[in-house]
């Protein structure tokens, strides 16, 4: 990576608007996430978190504004932007025709990687999926499918990883496995963007946090600053206080 690339923000979002009919899902969002950060994007249901991730990942198109991943604009320079991004979707989606290993190989191929089995084996091991490698996706439990989703997001070693509510409805063991692996990735330099409703997880893992409310960014600061500003002991208290202030 050149020194110019090292100085670029991992994610840069400027004046992004997105509407679905009369619903204004995003109303001029500005957000910058630096490389190497473990960043939390919080907000109540319907705040626009998944919409923001969708426009960042190219799954939806913003009405206006610009979005960049590692300096690559997501529509003009979509190939480089998508190579720089790994997304774990919120829904438990899978292709029932394939086994775990086939799923990961296919995902590698989409990103131009033909011989990626060493890294696939490492992912399987880190996500405790080695013994399920040849099992069809249909035969896996919900938690196992979630692990494969995480694996799919990592097959191309993206510098920026987006986790959209990765621990929703999963057991303690998977949470611990997941956070251990994600912290390892963050330690290795990967930027992590996390959305979650489990605020204690965000507080334990992240350095900075942004809060979306009805499509607008109402806070973006270090967790310690947010706690101080809200005179709160926990992130949950600070979050509730912030939402009350905004709605007042």
């Amino acid at each position: 990576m050149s020194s110019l690339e090292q100085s670029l923000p991992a994610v840069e979002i400027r004046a992004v608007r997105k509407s679905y009919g009369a619903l204004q899902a995003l109303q001029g969002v500005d957000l910058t996430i630096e490389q190497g950060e473990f960043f939390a994007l919080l907000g109540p249901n319907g705040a626009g978190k998944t919409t923001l991730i969708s426009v960042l990942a190219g799954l939806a198109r913003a009405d206006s504004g610009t979005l960049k991943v590692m300096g690559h604009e997501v529509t003009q320079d979509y190939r480089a932007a998508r190579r720089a991004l790994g997304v774990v979707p919120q829904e438990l989606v899978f292709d029932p025709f394939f086994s775990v290993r086939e799923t990961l190989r296919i995902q590698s191929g989409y990103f131009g990687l033909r011989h990626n089995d060493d890294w696939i084996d490492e992912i399987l091991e880190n996500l405790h999926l080695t013994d399920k490698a040849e099992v069809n996706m249909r035969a896996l439990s919900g938690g196992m499918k979630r692990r494969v989703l995480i694996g799919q997001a990592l097959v191309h070693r993206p510098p920026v990883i987006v986790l959209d509510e990765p621990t929703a409805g999963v057991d303690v063991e998977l949470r611990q496995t997941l956070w251990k692996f994600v912290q390892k990735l963050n330690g290795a330099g990967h930027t992590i963007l996390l959305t979650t409703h489990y605020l204690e997880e965000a507080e334990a893992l992240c350095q900075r946090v942004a809060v979306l409310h009805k499509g607008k960014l109402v806070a973006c600061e270090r967790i310690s600053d947010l706690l101080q500003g809200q005179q709160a002991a926990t992130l949950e208290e600070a979050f509730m206080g912030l939402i009350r202030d905004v709605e007042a």
Partner: protein
Amino acid sequence: MGVGFATLFGKEVLRFWKVSFQTLLAPLVSTLLYLVVFAQVLGQRISVYPGVGYAEFLVPGLVMMAMLQNAFANSSSSLVQSKITGNLVFVLLAPLSEMEFFLAYVLAAMLRGLLVGSVVLMTAGFFFPLQIHSLLWILVFCLLATGLSGALGVLAGVWAEKFDQMAAWQNFLILPLTFLSGAFYSLHSLPPLWHFISRFNPFFYAIDGFRYGFIGASDVSPWESLLIVGSTCLALSWVTLALLRSGWRVRP
């Protein structure tokens, strides 16, 4: 076109190959049933072209009908299933262009259509001796017709958001177009109104041109069929690509 395109194409081929009982053998059985019923029951009473037996006339029509239906089924069902189950997200997150996306689905659909057509043709040829007038015409119409049908399947798959919407395409468009395409009869045997209407059906030209490659006789010139099937294929591809580039129903 790189590894990403090749992977998506390979995945689509693997998808239908893994359920080949349903995607390759079932069409063979249904097509052979048509052949047995129509060729055996009507074969003695009908002569479409002088010197050409009805089975000889019917087999190319049924083979092309099977190719058209299966190429459409492949791209359309794969896309609509992926959209409804949500796993299309894995393709959409990948650094693939709309052209790569489109071609991977269309080429896989063509391959399924061609495999079904080959299996039906070889099996039918075992029971009914067939002649080949021009292999080139046969191959040209195989490729163009399965391409047209595969592209139509992508368009349907992009548009449909529910299984019943896809069933509407199958039952109200593909089925009438394939059955009213001259697979079982010559256009000249139709009343003037149906004759006129059939001239707007691109599947008729696909079947007529393909049949010309076998028996050397056709309702219209194979060049006219080539022009119509080719231009319909190009027009459908252009429209579908334009819709994909706009993000319509795929990247809302």
